[in-house]
């Protein structure tokens, strides 16, 4: 009971701050718009139709994953600020387990990222992505799972570093390779062998594959297989996060 209230307290703080910081709200609206319209439409004009979909629609699931990935990973930097401003001390001396503190923060970050996810799903309806209510629910759940895994990774990195600058550096080495080798921007079916190997090792590949399967019906692996891999990955990431918070 008190653990649940602890999780709720930490989450509630994150949620309140999210709605109060206008910059966070605005950037979570602007950046996906830029990607879908500028990138999708721009590159789309030079690329042929892929699997019967325009490029803009083809990369839509990839863009959705990317938006959630970026927001989720970067969320880890707030833990560094919390520590710098000494705010975190109050939470760390509270009689609440570190696992609960982690859970609260993680859910806070996932909420943050999923606000963007929901916004993206709504845009999808308007640009002609075939989204039925069932597809919307499945896509939402898949994005949530990705977000939980990635927020956890971000928090692990944040819990182990002391400076926001160091965090940006490390996160760039995690984020860009994960994104580029996930098949978010291109189909993974006919890649050179080395690239196919790299994408197969990248957990995000399965997230993108699942989402594309759910939304467009184009998937390389069975969706339950994708989802199972993401789930295992999320569990490992959360475990690492809890360990990181215990040592903090």
């Amino acid at each position, binding site marked *: 009971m*008190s653990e649940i*209230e*602890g999780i*709720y*307290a*930490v989450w*509630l*703080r994150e949620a*309140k*701050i999210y709605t*109060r*910081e206008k910059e966070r709200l605005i950037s979570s609206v602007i950046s996906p718009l830029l990607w879908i319209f500028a990138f999708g439409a721009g590159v789309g004009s030079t690329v042929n139709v892929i699997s019967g979909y325009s490029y803009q629609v083809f990369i839509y699931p990839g863009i959705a994953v990317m938006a959630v990935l970026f927001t989720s990973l970067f969320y880890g930097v707030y833990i560094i600020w919390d520590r710098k*401003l*000494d*705010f975190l*001390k*109050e*939470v*760390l*001396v*509270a*009689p*609440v*387990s570190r696992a609960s503190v982690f859970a609260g923060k993680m859910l806070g970050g996932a909420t943050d990222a999923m606000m963007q996810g929901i916004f993206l799903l709504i845009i999808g309806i308007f640009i002609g992505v075939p989204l039925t209510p069932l597809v919307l629910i499945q896509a939402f759940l898949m994005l949530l799972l990705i977000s939980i895994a990635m927020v956890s990774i971000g928090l692990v990195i944040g819990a182990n570093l002391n400076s926001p600058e160091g965090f940006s550096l490390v996160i760039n080495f995690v984020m860009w390779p994960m994104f580029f080798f996930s098949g978010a921007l291109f189909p993974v079916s006919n890649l050179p062998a080395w690239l196919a190997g790299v994408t197969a090792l990248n957990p995000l590949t399965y997230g993108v594959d699942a989402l594309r399967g759910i939304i467009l019906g184009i998937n390389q692996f069975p969706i339950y297989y994708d989802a199972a891999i993401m789930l295992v990955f999320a569990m490992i990431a959360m475990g690492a996060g809890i360990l990181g918070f215990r040592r903090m």
Partner: protein
Amino acid sequence: MVIKTEALTKKYGKLTAVDQLNLEVEEGEIFGLLGPNGAGKTTLISMLCTILKPTSGRAWVNGFDIVKEASKVRKSIGIVFQQPSVDDLLTGRENLAMHNLLFGVPRELRKQRIDEVLSIVNLEKRADDLVNTYSGGMRRRLELARGIMHHPKILFLDEPTLGLDPQTREHIWEYIQELAEKECMTVMLTTHYMEEAEQLCDRVAIIDYGKIVVLDSPQALKNKIAGDVVKLKQQNPDIDSLRKLDYVKNVQEKDGLLYLSIKDASKHLQDLLTHTGPIDFVEVRSGTLNDVFLHYTGREIREAEAEGGFWERVMKR
């Protein structure tokens, strides 16, 4: 014994911040930690409240080992940190509500406790403003309100009244004393205001270089060390011969003035003046905890000093 440490030590690399410290604090006591900047007070409190792991040694708070039973320790304590730690982006009331949840205050008491502490620190009117619009003193008050709100068994206060106006300070001390009595709460506090320690604390420990230099009630310390203080101005004083007088406890020179701690000035002043010879100026006052503090820790400011200082002073005594 509510707090007990055994050879508790914390090292930061080569620097020993808390050095083999042994300490016992009884239930219901208001215990003061005094010491110059960098003495190790905050480090000691951080270990006792489980945010910092000791390098060696052991300690128990409310009977629980601070390393092995950290979560039980955390259930027993409240703390006001030296560094501000209220959340800027929440309102005062939201900060308190969050604390209620984190520290497991029973649901039916929550609202009442918030109102109670807000009125003690006089923040009712600003309670619903964001903390980043508060003045420094108001933040401090909010922090204090938060630390006492869940009525902890042991309360740690690291320079709680720093930057507070005298009215608020009085108010807060009255409340803490009342709470300590009513709920048999134990308080461990650090402060640089000697009057505060004198007025509030049952016992004080002066610590320096991570070690306890002396520990006793403020009254006993004053009797033992300070006695009365005589301030003298004189050309070419003969300090050594003054030191030899049996009622003179200590002589210090500063800015061309002599400060003598002597036993019972009314009895010995006349005799003292026969030994000093002609003087330009004399002033007598009764000793304070401030004198005790300076006697044990010297007058120099710490940051500029090298490692050797501690031993030099030990040898002198």
